[in-house]
């Protein structure tokens, strides 16, 4: 694999992409490399954006932060935390999932991959927090989209396209994010011993109540005996206390709800981010479905020996197993969802696309949109195994 010289400015990025346009080279855009093992093995040269690092502007009262894409995620999280704020979509570092040391994830990588954690359920995802950006398209041209204010509808919402684009449209060179105040306190209320369907029902009931739940997740008995169903409540003290009382009342029929001690709560939510109980060497999948379909998904895959956990009130199932990838894809699709292959051996990744295949018409439209930004396929590295729009 070739590695291009690391660009240290947007101009360098534009030059590198323009060079690739001239020579017909393919470029893989990379931040910290924490997600490099996602997708098919490939040969493309790497355009390493990690030197494009640093916070450009941060005004807590405006709820806006502008940074270069190679800025480490932890650096941004520490900075906003020092002002009592947060990235509400709760992004996390994928590096440890692949045996890499933590801390490599960059803000650009997090956005390009659309990474969001437990609070995504109620606070929105990466897509909901990227306000604007500067980038270099596959034409080698620098351009700007969105803006640096929290409310804007001027022109197409290209920041939505940027999140989850996996570096296939353009190279980000600057990003502006919406940041939000962090809740003064956080309380986690748990119910023990619920079956998956009961747990999903309990979480749905909590989210349908006035308790203003921020996150809801479930570890089954295979991972936490007895099973653990937890909702997280964040905010001001009197509010959180009142909402915790609401949850206990709501959950009276299920099990005696209890407050998790702070360290137990921290361990639980860290488990949801680190996915450590699923570190068994099997394929790791992220399956998005309607929340109510979560229990059916795991019941259907149970004969294949899956290990799993629910986040997003059952709408996100992390699972690991050793069977035929088609089993997961088919189950997810039939239940109205989709499945992303996060981690697998090379042989599996060579034949199984990481992204769930779209409906044909949608796939064709996606290819046309990619071609709009990258007509020569500079960013088509084969990582996603789909039919490239230009090859």
């Amino acid at each position: 694999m070739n590695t291009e010289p690391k660009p240290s400015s947007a101009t360098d990025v534009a030059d590198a992409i323009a060079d690739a346009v001239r020579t017909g080279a393919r470029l893989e855009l990379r931040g910290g490399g924490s997600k490099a093992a996602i997708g098919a093995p490939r040969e493309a040269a790497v355009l390493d954006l990690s030197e494009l690092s640093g916070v450009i502007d941060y005004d807590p009262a405006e709820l806006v932060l502008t940074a270069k894409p190679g800025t480490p995620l932890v650096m941004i999280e520490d900075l906003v935390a020092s002002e009592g704020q947060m990235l509400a979509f709760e992004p996390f570092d994928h590096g440890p999932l692949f045996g890499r040391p933590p801390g490599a994830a960059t803000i650009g990588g997090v956005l390009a991959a659309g990474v969001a954690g437990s609070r995504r359920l109620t606070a929105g995802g990466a897509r909901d927090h990227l306000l604007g950006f500067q980038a270099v398209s596959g034409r080698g041209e620098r351009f700007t989209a969105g803006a640096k204010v929290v409310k804007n509808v001027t022109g197409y919402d290209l920041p939505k396209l940027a999140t989850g684009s996996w570096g296939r449209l353009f190279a980000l060179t600057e990003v502006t994010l919406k940041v939000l105040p962090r809740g003064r306190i956080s309380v986690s209320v748990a119910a023990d011993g619920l079956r998956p369907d009961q747990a999903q029902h309990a979480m749905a009931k909590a989210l349908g109540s006035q308790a203003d739940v921020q996150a809801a997740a479930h570890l089954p008995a295979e991972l936490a005996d007895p099973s653990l169903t937890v909702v997280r409540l964040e905010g001001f003290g009197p509010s959180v206390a009142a909402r915790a009382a609401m949850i206990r009342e709501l959950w009276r029929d299920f099990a005696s709800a209890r407050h998790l001690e702070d360290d137990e709560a921290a361990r639980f939510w860290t488990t949801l981010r680190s996915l450590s109980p699923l570190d068994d060497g099997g394929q790791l999948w992220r399956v998005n479905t309607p929340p109510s379909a979560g229990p059916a998904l795991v019941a259907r895959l149970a004969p294949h020996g899956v290990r799993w956990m629910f986040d997003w009130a059952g709408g996100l199932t992390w699972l690991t197993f050793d069977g035929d990838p088609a089993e997961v894809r088919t189950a997810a699709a039939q239940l109205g969802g989709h499945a992303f292959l996060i981690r697998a051996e090379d042989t599996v990744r060579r034949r199984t696309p990481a992204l769930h295949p779209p409906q044909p018409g949608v796939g064709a439209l996606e290819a046309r949109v990619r071609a709009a930004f990258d007509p020569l396929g500079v960013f088509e590295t084969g990582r996603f195994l789909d039919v490239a729009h230009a090859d």
Partner: protein
Amino acid sequence: MSLVMPEPDRTVLDRRDTIVAALRLMIPGEGVIDDVRSLKAYESDGLTAYRQPPMVVVLPETVEQVSAVLRFCHEHGVKVVPRGSGTSLSGGALPLEDAVLLGMAKFNRILSVDYADRIAVVQPGVTNLAVTRAVEDRGFYYAPDPSSQIACSIGGNVAENSGGVHCLKYGLTTNNVLALQVVMIDGEVLRLGGTYLDALGLDLVGLMVGSEGLLGVVTEVTVRILPKPETARALLIGFSTVEAGGQCVADVIAAGIIPAGMEMMDRPAIHAAEAFVHAGYPLDVAALLIVEVDGPLAECDHLIEEVRAIALKNGAVSCHASESEAERLKFWAGRKAAFPAVGRISPDYYCMDGTIPRRRLPEVLARMNQLSQDYGLGVANVFHAGDGNLHPLILYDANVPGQLDRAEAFGADILRLCVEVGGVLTGEHGVGVEKRDLMPVMFSETDLAHQQRVKCAFDPQSLLNPGKVFPVLHRCAELGRMHIHGGAVPHPALPRF
């Protein structure tokens, strides 16, 4: 008016009768409107300064009919302007002389509600408020609440990415839509997104929302619904300077509070509103702030006291907390009636919609007042203060020759000012035709070309709502050209887009 729309295609106008006849085969009875008097009802939307009757109006009732109409228009090179309820304040649904106006009003059914997964599937012609009405008996509501919510349609909300007074806390339309059914210009029907969070590929739902009817016609919308907060309370706070009010807003946010709504009015708006609805607003203040908090009662009571302390620290000259629902609604009555109230003190008014970084508010208001003097036209200001979204209302009289032109020039200067201080041309009303020619103030030619190539990926002949959003209509072939220097074109066999 100085607005230049795309030149009408004579060959289409010459074929009008055959086009109407063909449309009648697709849509029966009253679903095709072509008599001059009835067409006049569709000649403008909420931006009434611009009027143009369409060539013909079609009001389909089924997805198949929408698909058939679009396929026909695509094959015959006929332009299409989609329309929801026609409440756009930026002229997004302004007809074209040679275009089919595709009205979605008959798509007015709520298809399903799923309380367990907290979603509703609705047709695009359903009004914004009707979604809430359909789910409120179970304690739910649909969060985005544009001020036109009685009339505006969900399809229009999707096209414009509509907001409302609660969007700082609850988001715009884009943050509350999960899936769309879209008919493409060639008639293809696509489902984008689903009843899940996060797209499986590119976020095409996110791209469609706010695309102002230029990319496709939405025929079904899946929205998130939320449990209605237990209660809401509001504070009515007066300041003797705009600066103090602005600082109070910044301090509330800095204290970690995201209010459900945070609205500010300046002196002319306060006086107009108070004279109209007698909401009990203080008249001796320069800025009036309404801060609403919602959630459990304990939270509201706590936050009301925190905000009160911040207000007093910033020198508030009056500060009242609502002690009842009736009182809270009274606080809002003046704000919600601000536009018609201004309509009483001026024959006409022109509503602007820029967003600025909040810290620049005092400076922007001062310069706006200077512009007001220069143009000889009054201006009243209401803001969504939490997110820096300004709604200056320019007062003018359309019957006085030249005043409309002056009002438009004044408005354009305000929007240039918003961009100059780091803000944007539109926070929630959309670009439409109104701000189209100002797009180069905010975006370079290269920026706009990147946006227009997205349009080409959806609608290569530019038949859907042409003349909106983009100041120059480039042909897609021209936009797709690549200039490559110093080397051979790679992959010479490839078709170039």
